[in-house]
């Protein structure tokens, strides 16, 4: 049974696309046929983060309007044979995303035997964001430990609970997961940053992972590789853990405690 997962946040710049790219890659690396869709019509960036920007010919809006088939528009990932990217349109306006059109694309992906369909939502609460979450079975709410991000996450949770098909049908609700990104254990310990338990206490949804603030994320996006491929980095390990938890494994949280650098590390520098 295919699952549709929306990666959303309300606020911009918190790591939705970074997380969508790594999460979808992680699912594919574990053998699941996965598609990742960019819903940010007009401001597409998933293609850059996935490193396939020069291979984009057709996009989501072309498929919805019948100018291209899904097979023509899907781009095979450079790392994983069973991961496909559907880019957003760069030119059309957001009204091109119709509910019927999006539903048809998702149904066609399910018919093509995709196991997981990851919808990378745009920021905000406008049409693109609502379309990305409308058909979701599960939602990953990306939140920074910072007041405006937490408030916007709560707002987007309200929209999921009001506007998603699952909410409107009144059956099993959308399964919500909290993903905290750009986390700095050092600043949390110093009392300067909300802790993951604080954020969870406020938003009251289950935590699927904590991604530490890391230089590796910028290196990854510079190269067009999802951060999960930065082997040996905290961020890569943290995203691997997120995928494990999503697939039902009980994996303890990592990278949430500050370890003081040792003397040698302080002298010779470390990461």
């Amino acid at each position: 049974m295919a699952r549709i997962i929306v990666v959303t946040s309300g606020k911009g710049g918190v790591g939705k696309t970074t997380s969508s790219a790594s999460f979808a890659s992680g699912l594919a690396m574990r053998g699941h046929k996965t598609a990742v869709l960019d819903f940010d019509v007009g401001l597409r960036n998933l293609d850059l983060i996935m490193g396939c920007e020069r291979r984009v010919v057709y996009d989501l809006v072309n498929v919805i309007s019948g100018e291209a088939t899904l097979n023509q528009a899907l781009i095979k990932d450079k790392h994983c044979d069973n991961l496909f990217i559907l880019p957003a349109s760069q030119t059309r306006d957001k009204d091109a995303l119709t509910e019927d059109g999006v539903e048809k694309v998702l149904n066609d992906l399910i018919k093509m035997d995709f196991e997981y369909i990851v919808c990378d939502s745009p920021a905000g609460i406008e049409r693109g964001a609502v379309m990305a979450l409308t058909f979701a079975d599960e939602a990953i709410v990306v939140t920074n430990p910072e007041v405006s991000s937490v408030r916007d996450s709560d707002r987007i949770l309200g929209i999921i609970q009001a506007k998603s098909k699952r909410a409107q049908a009144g059956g099993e609700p959308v399964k919500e997961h909290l993903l905290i990104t750009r986390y700095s254990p050092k600043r949390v310990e110093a009392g300067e940053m909300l802790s993951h338990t604080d954020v969870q206490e406020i938003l009251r949804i289950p935590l699927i992972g904590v991604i530490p603030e890391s230089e590796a994320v910028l290196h990854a996006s510079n190269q067009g590789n999802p951060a999960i491929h930065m082997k040996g980095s905290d961020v890569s390990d943290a995203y691997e853990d997120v995928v494990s938890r999503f697939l039902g494994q009980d994996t303890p949280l990592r990278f949430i405690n500050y370890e003081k650098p040792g003397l040698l590390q302080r002298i010779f520098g470390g990461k």
Partner: protein
Amino acid sequence: MALLSFLFNSKPKTANMAKERLQIIIARERTGRDGYDFLPALREELIAVISKYTKVNAEDIKVSLDKQGNLEVLDVNVVLPDLEMRS
């Protein structure tokens, strides 16, 4: 003072303020959200019904919705006037 804080390297601990402010604003924004926008109307009707039987000040009727874990509690608080004030 600046010298002291320089010496002891005391950075302000602001995370607690963030948490408190968020708890207050989010609780407020959540009541008004889907399904619970009937609270003001409910309050108006309660005032009308109670006024039929006894004198009561509109501001002495408070209606609020609280969430405790998975339990939602509709809290209606009516303060009746002193005996001698009732007609």
